């Protein structure tokens, strides 16, 4: 039973570029959440997707956007990259509903030069 898988594992970009990160949820899960973890910090909620719709967004600018596909996989897109976007981006999947635990992937390490 595969867990949450994310790709790529590492990525290096320059300021102003655009990036797409990918996530496949754990088998049977239908909800995907994205988090940003800056160095030395706890993860911060970016947004959550369910039934291909964004359900809630954290305090992140519109440069951050996402998508969920019919097979529940998801993408996170970041435009006009800034140095401050350097972080570990974590994807978590769960079953929709109250109190369902979120299962995390190993993340994508994004470095902006």
């Amino acid at each position: 039973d595969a867990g949450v898988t994310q790709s790529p594992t590492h990525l290096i970009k320059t300021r102003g570029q655009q990036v797409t990160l990918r996530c496949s949820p754990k088998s049977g899960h239908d909800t995907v959440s994205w988090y940003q973890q800056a160095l030395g910090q706890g993860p911060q909620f970016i947004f959550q997707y369910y039934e291909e719709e964004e359900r809630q967004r954290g305090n992140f600018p519109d440069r951050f956007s996402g998508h969920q596909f019919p097979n529940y996989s998801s993408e996170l897109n970041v435009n006009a990259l800034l140095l401050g976007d350097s972080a570990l981006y974590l994807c978590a999947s769960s079953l929709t509903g109250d109190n369902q635990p979120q299962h995390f992937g190993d993340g994508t390490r994004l470095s902006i030069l």
Partner: protein
Amino acid sequence: AQSVTQLDSQVPVFEEAPVELRCNYSSSVSVYLFWYVQYPNQGLQLLLKYLSGSTLVKGINGFEAEFNKSQTSFHLRKPSVHISDTAEYFCAVSDWTYNTDKLIFGTGTRLQVFP
């Protein structure tokens, strides 16, 4: 708004000694609490969760946590740590609004176990 405070950024401890990692939360509604562990270059792994019922929650790898509503705390404990427990530990509260259960994390506690 809900928030989580982890009082210790680093906790050094010798192998086989007991350890407690402290977590306090603020919430105006029913609260669901979690502890996650993060090993180097990996994602987060769920250690244990408190949803309701018994205030003493047992998790994986010999960890347990106690929910204390009056103290608004959810401290993580292990009676005897191993070198392999060296990792970053995050306390989180579930914020159930707009039919979405986003997690709000603390800043983490680095547990360093020495031989």
